[in-house]
């Protein structure tokens, strides 16, 4: 009799404990425990060379934040999990974060992972803060999806706005713009938009848009077609490897006008290799830049927390800024912050000052695209580094 009472009592205690734990995970954040945030990022897959710095940047910011006491008196428990740019792994990660009661999920370097994760996260009222995406993630605004990277479609507007600036400086009233893009579905959409945009500005599309493969071996024919079109500028969209083949081929064919590319072709090594006449934009400053004071804090934190070797490109800065976004959102959300609360607080932030690490970030109920400006860079051989050739230029029409 005594042993059965003891057994019943033990079971009751265990049940109470289980219910308490379940209650904790459902609420997303208890008043006493840390804020729990998740990041799903490519740490071992095809884009890991950008994913690892991005994750390291975020982790460095959070480590530094926790060292100075966290937010609202609470620390941030950040969990970073590898998805290797695999959709299934990304979904597993999101489910895991939901089960653990994390109140927001950051990351997804490939947008198809974000696309697959958003419905699941929205069902659990957990916002996903990803890196770009197709138009249907933004129009109409998805309540539980935000982006802290520029949408691919916007790159044509950014480049054409830069061309507008340069053409005015050079006294070119009606610029002739050639388009030279990698042949992917997203870029075909971008090219269609660019073509419309060029026409709507009253400019001239120089020749037919030219396409090249994802891994081009030779683009002599495309380069010659562009030469025959006699452009004033070339709008390019390709990564570093493709840009090297394309720009070298253009120059071999005698095309010496400025070539303006997007952020995938903005690595320091590419800018250096292609030199004068090649310009590419970035959405976040590179850790190697020397004229942005806020980078000093980032670098110091990276040294302090053992992440200095990951400060290899602007993806580290992107991750660091993600940390800043988290801090600002949590401040606004308050001590007892849930997924829904995080979403509401983020949406209500308005303008976020990144201290020059990017252009001003803006968010509202009407737009969940935080990044709307880019900065253009070329190589400065005298300083032996990349230099900015513009301020933050709008990426909107």
């Amino acid at each position: 009799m005594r042993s059965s009472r003891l057994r019943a009592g033990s079971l009751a205690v265990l049940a109470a404990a289980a219910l308490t734990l379940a209650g904790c995970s459902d609420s997303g954040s208890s008043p006493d425990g840390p804020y729990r945030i998740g990041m799903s990022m490519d740490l071992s897959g095809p884009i890991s060379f950008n994913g690892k710095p991005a994750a390291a940047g975020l982790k460095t910011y959070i480590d530094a934040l926790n060292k100075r006491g966290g937010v609202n008196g609470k620390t941030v428990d950040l969990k970073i999990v590898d998805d290797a740019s695999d959709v299934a792994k990304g979904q597993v990660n999101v489910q895991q974060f939901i089960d653990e009661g994390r109140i927001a999920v950051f990351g997804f370097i490939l947008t198809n992972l974000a696309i697959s994760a958003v419905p699941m996260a929205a069902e659990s009222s957990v916002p996903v803060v990803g890196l770009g995406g197709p138009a249907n993630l933004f129009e109409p605004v998805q309540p539980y999806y935000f982006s802290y990277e520029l949408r691919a479609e916007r790159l044509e507007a950014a480049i054409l706005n830069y061309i507008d600036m340069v053409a005015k400086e050079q006294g070119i009233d009606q610029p002739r713009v050639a388009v030279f893009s990698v042949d992917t579905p997203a870029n075909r959409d971008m090219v269609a938009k660019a073509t419309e945009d060029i026409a709507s500005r009253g400019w001239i599309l120089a020749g037919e848009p030219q396409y090249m493969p994802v891994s081009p071996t030779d683009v002599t024919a495309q380069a010659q077609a562009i030469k025959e079109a006699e452009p004033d500028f070339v709008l390019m969209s390709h990564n570093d490897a493709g840009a090297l083949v394309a720009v070298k081929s253009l120059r071999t064919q005698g095309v010496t006008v400025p070539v303006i590319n997007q952020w995938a072709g903005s690595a320091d090594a590419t800018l250096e290799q292609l030199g004068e006449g090649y310009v590419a934009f970035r959405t976040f400053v590179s850790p190697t830049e020397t004229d942005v004071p806020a980078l000093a804090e980032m670098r110091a934190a990276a040294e302090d927390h053992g992440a200095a070797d990951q400060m290899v490109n602007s993806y580290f800065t992107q991750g660091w800024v993600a940390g800043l976004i988290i801090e600002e959102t949590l401040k606004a959300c308050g001590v007892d912050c849930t997924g829904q609360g995080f979403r509401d607080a983020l949406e209500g932030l308005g303008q976020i000052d990144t201290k020059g690490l990017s252009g001003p970030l803006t968010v509202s109920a009407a737009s969940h695209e935080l990044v709307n400006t880019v900065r253009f860079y070329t190589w400065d051989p005298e300083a032996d580094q990349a230099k900015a050739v513009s301020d933050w230029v709008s990426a909107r029409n």
Partner: protein
Amino acid sequence: MTSLLLGAVVLSAIYALVGFAWVLLNRTNGILNLATGAQLAMGAYIFNQFATEWRLPWVVTILGTVAVIAVLGGLTHLVVFRKLAGQPEFALVIATLGLASVLKGISRLTWGTEARIIREPFPDVLVRITPDATTTTYGLLGCGAALVVFGAAFAFFRFSNLGVQMRAAAENPVLAAQGRVAVDWVYVLGWAMALTVAAIAGIIYSYSTALSFHGVETLGLRGIAPALIGGMTSIKGVLPGALIVGLAETFGVKFFGGPAQEVTAWLVILVVLLIRPQGLFGEKQVERV
């Protein structure tokens, strides 16, 4: 037109080097090597390690790369393909697929996945060939390398004892062995030579772009086109095969646009194989029953 022709010739030179690697291994070792692309990439990464990461003198870089690649080639035969001797052809092909995966994994673990710029021995500058046609120093390097490789291969197989032995082993390994040809070492040499030429192609291609495993491997897979057109058993067929592919790609883009670039080579392969299944210079396989 002249500039397009020149561009096609420069492109053909790279394809010729890659096609050579495909055909050499098929001819000497009887293997359709689907790891050719991965081996191109590995060769380029090894070269980059010597040249860019360690910044060794160029003589050391070149000799070191050749030595490492030759050893890798030898090990590939001794450790993997020697044990598969006598197995059906499809087993050998599957083994090369496995080899490609292993090489990709090793490359990722060792060097990561980001694109790299290889240190240049000399600057890549424009070279005017005719008033209308310009290429670059590395474009000329590719053409020169192709001529040297094919010239050396011709002389080697025609006039050297070892070359004759390799031809004998390729024709009939059993008879060759009975004639005291060290067939095993012939196969080792075949792998070493194929990998070395593959590496040359990978390195020269990487100088026109950035070194990335995916990019160089893709070139390697495309390089089967000249081998198929010229004939998988004919080394001399690789040159015209490469020229046909280079011209088809370049003029395909000229007349049908950029999307035609990846398709025209395969269309040409289809046409050639429909007319002559063994390729333009390949040997007809006769099976006596």
